[in-house]
């Protein structure tokens, strides 16, 4: 009966226009609708699938501003049991290492964790480093880019998918897993789940509650900061292929030329 912690993050909706703030190049959280990151929905789904098959408990853990409660609620309405929310103004502008330290400390607040599941990369920051840093900090094995997760007793087996192919990994619990896009199709919460989420416990913690000094986190002491940001240049006009009976071959040629196939 694995005790699972799922890391979730509230991110700006990819459907809305996303911006960085002019003053310090951190995410302008007011400019876009905030949603539970899609990759985290898959992480939650995977935890729920494991729970449904083997029992156990699913705790969602989020480090983020007060608004992140919406992402937490969504995960709870999908079926997670409880939540830990680390919210502290001191965290503003934290880098991946600082954030991972906070997450590691918060994971420590959950009793007897067997498995930490994360998405492999958030759609906003896209550093893709948190699961690995977290595993290092916790001293757990890391099984990243999972396409398939199987738990057998105290052993975890993961199929990792990369551009090169599939790798089969095995480790003993407790472990950190990060999941990729293809792991599953997340469920939509039902109204019953939405109603039930209201009554599930959410523990809110500050960095001080985690025994971390406020000076160790946040923009001022971050190991990396964003110094400049520019929008992507508009896409250049595409290349037209005239079909004179050999359209298919020409397209294939083009794709080979671009090393796309």
């Amino acid at each position, binding site marked *: 009966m694995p005790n699972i912690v799922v890391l979730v993050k509230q991110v700006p909706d990819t459907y809305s226009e996303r911006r960085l703030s002019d003053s310090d190049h951190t995410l302008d959280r007011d400019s876009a609708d905030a949603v539970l990151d899609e990759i985290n929905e898959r992480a939650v789904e995977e935890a729920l699938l494991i729970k449904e098959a083997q029992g156990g408990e699913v705790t969602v853990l989020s480090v983020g501003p007060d608004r992140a409660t919406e992402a937490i609620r969504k995960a709870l309405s999908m079926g997670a049991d409880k939540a830990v929310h680390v919210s502290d103004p001191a965290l503003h502008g934290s880098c991946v290492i600082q954030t991972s330290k906070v997450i590691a400390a918060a994971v420590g607040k959950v009793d007897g964790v067997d498995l930490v599941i994360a998405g492999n990369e958030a759609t906003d920051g896209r550093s893709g480093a948190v699961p690995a840093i977290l595993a290092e900090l916790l001293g757990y094995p890391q099984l990243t880019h999972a396409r398939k997760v199987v738990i057998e007793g105290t052993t975890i087996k993961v199929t990792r998918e990369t551009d090169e192919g599939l790798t089969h990994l095995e480790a003993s619990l407790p472990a950190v897993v990060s999941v990729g896009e293809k792991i599953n199709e997340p*469920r939509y*919460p*039902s*109204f019953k789940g939405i*109603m039930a989420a209201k009554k599930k416990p959410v523990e809110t913690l500050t960095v001080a509650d985690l025994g971390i000094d406020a000076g160790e986190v946040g923009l001022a002491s971050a190991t990396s900061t964003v110094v400049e940001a520019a929008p992507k240049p508009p896409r250049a006009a595409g290349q037209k292929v005239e079909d004179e009976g050999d359209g298919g071959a020409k397209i294939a040629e083009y794709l080979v030329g671009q090393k796309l196939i």
Partner: protein
Amino acid sequence: MIDLSVDEEHDALRATVREFAREEVAPVIGDLYEREEFPYALVAKMGEMGLFGLPIPEEHGGMGGDYFALCLALEELARVDSSVAITLEAGVSLGAMPLYRFGTAEQKERWLPPLAAGTALGAFGLTEPGGGSDAGATKTRAVRDGDSWVVNGSKSFITNSGTDITSLVTATAVTGTDDNGRKRISAIIIPSGTPGFEVSRKYSKVGWNASDTRGLSFTDVRVPAENLLGTEGRGYAQFLSTLDEGRVAIAALSVGLAQGCVDESLTYAAERSAFGHNIGSYQAIQFKIADMEVRTHTARLAYYAAASKMLRGQPFKKEAAIAKLVASNAAMDNARDATQIFGGYGFMNEYPVGRFYRDAKILEIGEGTSEVQRMLIARELGLAG
């Protein structure tokens, strides 16, 4: 004190259905619509989400929500597509709700759980070839023969009546005459596949092309006596109350279509340019969109007001008729304006607004025409016919 705000849970439901409509319905519906195919896969997913059980208590397999939850789901679905929305609307408000409201414990236990789960669909057969507005003129007859009812007659335009997962149709039928010579109308549950119960081929329709609409015929259809739904002779009153609720649902669905027109027009007005500027920079287009927004907003308030009375157990017949009338007009007007804003592309099936245009008209006809709504409103004002 007045509060028209939507609570957190209903808001979360709205967001969930919105996401579902955007991610799951939008990418596939154009194709299904053109091929006139019933959206089985989408219905299955909606079932898993519990949408078919929204206003039905958990003991009958539902979500334990309320009718307003259903309305919000319908609005968000119709914002993207009406065929899917009407499948849900008819399935719940016409298929399942009469069983829930008027059914015996045994009937509910037998029929409701699969309907609430969306694994089965129920249909409601009121309209006949000879007329729908004058529902009291029903010609279909049911005669008691021992432990059975024997039903003869036919029904027209019945939604969800011929899908692979349709489990029953509740049909209104004349079961006798009162002492004063008035017809006694009752509702009878006719399970799909009962001998003599024929379902015609799908109609070729102007809109709602991915929804299932068929004609039904009953030839000596024999069902057990316990298939009577509610009280014998009370069928007319029963379906009037079913339709009052249904009107609020259709109003919500209409608001969704009207909103979809605003959504699409806003995007297109910002993208499309003519004479060197975005068409959205021209006041003629801006005013059209402003008017569309006004209609949508007004219609939404009208259905919220009706729903709020309904949920508080107050009389809401007039409010339901007003909401249905205002919202279906808003849908029709917005669909016309949105199509205009899209120019030639508005007439192409490749853009959703063309589909909205085709789907809007029926909203002024189904579950009581606009004339019938006005008759109801006038009657509620004490104007006797």
